[in-house]
């Protein structure tokens, strides 16, 4: 998909005025964080598991080549295939070639962020193959021609009335007078329609939460069971994965699985955790005839060995966005590409370039909540700061911002000048603020004062108060 991350400011502005979106975001604020907190309170070992999960992923990253090759050997030993793709284009071509060889007409899809990243649906459709999203949220946004606004809850930006309207517009073979206003009827309608798609599809494509080097297995985690029907009822199962999804053993995966659902949806365990190894065995009566794992690099190897390596621990739980005040205010679409929220603010500039996505690392209050809830302890605020530094170095930030910083730096590195001018400034603003003690507008800060008043300083600086207290302290 075409990124619109450069328009973050306009996107965010529109999001604030979108009543349906704000209603949906209010539901999220009340939902995920409380559920996560409740389920974690029931597992005293959670913190220790986080440390172990982080260590497992760090170990994999330090030995990524070894584990990828071991994984490949074991996939092949069980009759499967591994495809290595450097770019989205290579990955799209690989998937298309498999589908063409199997003369596929329709393809069912489980939720896959890699599929979003490589814009697979458009490519398949352009080549005469119909992709059908089967995760309910993904199906809803597919028929609305949108992209996900959240990595685990793709349609979280919508309210049920919007979904009902889209169903009416799409499922035109059904009685237009049918009742469709409540969630159970919407779920039932989607279930009936998608069941037929599962039964008639030729190829099933899923993502992979983990790839197990020990056994050559891929693991998917869902609540609906759509990924299972996708991979069980078709001629071939294609699992799309980025390189860093590798985990050494099933024991390691079990540790990470204890973190994933709790962090993501606040469940003890997701409804379906499915471990897939190779194609169906000769004596089996169902299962896919072929098993393919398509690995995508697309910038991951370039993050290894850099200050962004920590980001490769991400297990895509979405906790960072569920707890982010910026995400909760503007929603996922404002971020303009596949990955929103704090993890997206770090990942997107890597994958589409800091010139396109430089606004995203700035869309943060640096409250630190994302890092504190991240099951992999990724220092997201620090990584966003790295991007800000790079953006500054590349002179991509606006001139006023850069000169402003240089102006400030000039004084900040000269303490006596800083104190002198800060004292003068504070007194001046204090007088100008007058009896109201507030400014309705300020030159150079129009954006800030548009939504709120600026409190006037009370005439003293922090430095002078501090010095006074120290003197008083010594005297006492």
């Amino acid at each position, binding site marked *: 998909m075409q990124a619109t991350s450069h328009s973050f400011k306009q996107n965010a502005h529109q999001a604030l005025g979108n009543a349906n979106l704000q209603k949906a975001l209010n539901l999220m604020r009340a939902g995920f964080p409380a559920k996560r907190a409740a389920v974690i309170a029931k597992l005293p070992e959670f913190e220790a598991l986080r440390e172990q999960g982080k260590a497992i992923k760090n170990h994999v990253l330090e*030995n990524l080549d070894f584990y990828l090759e071991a994984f490949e050997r074991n996939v092949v030993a069980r009759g499967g295939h591994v495809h290595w793709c450097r770019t989205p284009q290579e990955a799209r071509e690989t998937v298309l070639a498999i589908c063409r060889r199997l003369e596929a007409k329709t393809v069912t899809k489980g939720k896959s962020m890699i599929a979003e990243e490589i814009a697979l649906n458009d490519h398949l459709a352009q080549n005469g193959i119909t992709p059908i999203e089967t995760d309910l949220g993904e199906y809803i946004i597919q028929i609305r021609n949108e992209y996900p606004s959240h990595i685990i809850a793709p349609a979280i930006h919508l309210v049920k009335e919007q979904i009902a309207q889209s169903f009416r517009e799409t499922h035109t073979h059904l009685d237009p007078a049918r009742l469709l206003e409540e969630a159970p009827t919407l*779920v039932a309608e989607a279930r009936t329609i998608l069941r037929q798609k599962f039964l008639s599809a030729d190829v099933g494509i899923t993502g992979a939460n983990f790839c197990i080097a020990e056994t050559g297995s891929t693991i998917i985690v869902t609540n609906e069971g759509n990924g299972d029907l996708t991979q069980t009822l078709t001629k071939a199962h294609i699992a799309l994965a980025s390189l860093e999804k590798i985990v050494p053993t099933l*024991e390691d995966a079990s540790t990470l699985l204890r973190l994933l659902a709790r962090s993501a949806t606040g469940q003890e365990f997701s409804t379906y955790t499915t471990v897939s190894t190779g194609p169906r065995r000769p004596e089996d009566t169902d*299962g896919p005839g072929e098993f393919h794992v398509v690995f995508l690099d697309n910038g991951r190897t370039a993050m290894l060995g850099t200050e962004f390596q920590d980001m490769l621990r991400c297990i895509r739980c979405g906790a960072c966005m569920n707890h982010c005040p910026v995400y909760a205010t503007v929603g996922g679409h404002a971020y303009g590409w596949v990955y929103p929220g704090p993890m997206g603010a770090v990942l997107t500039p890597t994958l589409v370039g800091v010139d396109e996505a430089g606004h995203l690392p700035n869309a943060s209050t640096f409250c630190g909540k994302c890092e504190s809830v991240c099951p992999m302890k990724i220092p997201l605020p620090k990584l966003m700061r790295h991007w800000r530094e790079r953006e500054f170095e590349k002179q991509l930030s606006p001139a006023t911002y850069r000169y402003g910083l240089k102006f400030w730096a000039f004084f900040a590195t000269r303490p006596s000048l800083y104190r002198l001018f800060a004292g003068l400034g504070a007194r001046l603003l204090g007088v100008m603020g007058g009896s109201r003690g507030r400014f309705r507008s300020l030159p150079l800060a129009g954006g800030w004062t548009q939504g709120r008043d600026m409190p006037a300083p009370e005439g003293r600086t922090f430095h002078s108060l501090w010095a006074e207290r120290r003197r008083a302290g010594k005297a006492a």
Partner: protein
Amino acid sequence: MSDARDQILGSIRRALKRGALDAAQAAPLEQRLSDPQRNLIPARAAARDHAGQVDLFIAMAGEVQTTVTRVADPAAVPAAVADYLAQQNLPARLVMTPDPQLDDIPWDEQRLLEIRRGRAEDNDAAGVTACFAGIAETGTLMLTSGPASPTRNNFLPDTHIVVMRGNQVVATYEDGWTRLRAQPRHADGAWAMPRTVNFITGPSRTGDIEQRIELGAHGPRRLHIVLIEDGGTSS
């Protein structure tokens, strides 16, 4: 696309500032894969005796809307299944996997139960399967695919009834892997991972519409376990 493979592995090694691992460097990693070690195991289930684990399994299953009936022995299973279907106002018609684990149950004694053994199809409203294990820590069923246990039977019928033995309850996922690794091995010495291992924790659900949980998204709307106590405390 071996070019891409070489290039990807090459850029990983460059980023890590080293070449491919030599035999001595790879040895501990090979060991890690061939002899998997457990990480931290939560005490919740592991610290209980087997009877406590069975109780925990049932309690955790209940939290995710799985229902459980405990019966004393295999002879009581058909009546328990028929009762459950009647309570739910469902027809007494079932598709049942050809799993030998279900063979010692006297199904014929429930004459009203109409049972077809084989692979589930779209119009099968209710199905019975066996399972491989029950994981106490989260009330999770572990099912493995095979000629006698097709995966689709776990997903297509609207009502999934699982017959489980008490001695199939284990504490943790890791205990499930240990049991699976003890199965007969492949000719090449690799342990016999089935095509599919399904961990199932409750009936299918979705929260994709306004985050309200609705059951029965694509898989079963109802998940019911008939737990045979017989032999259930020896493991």
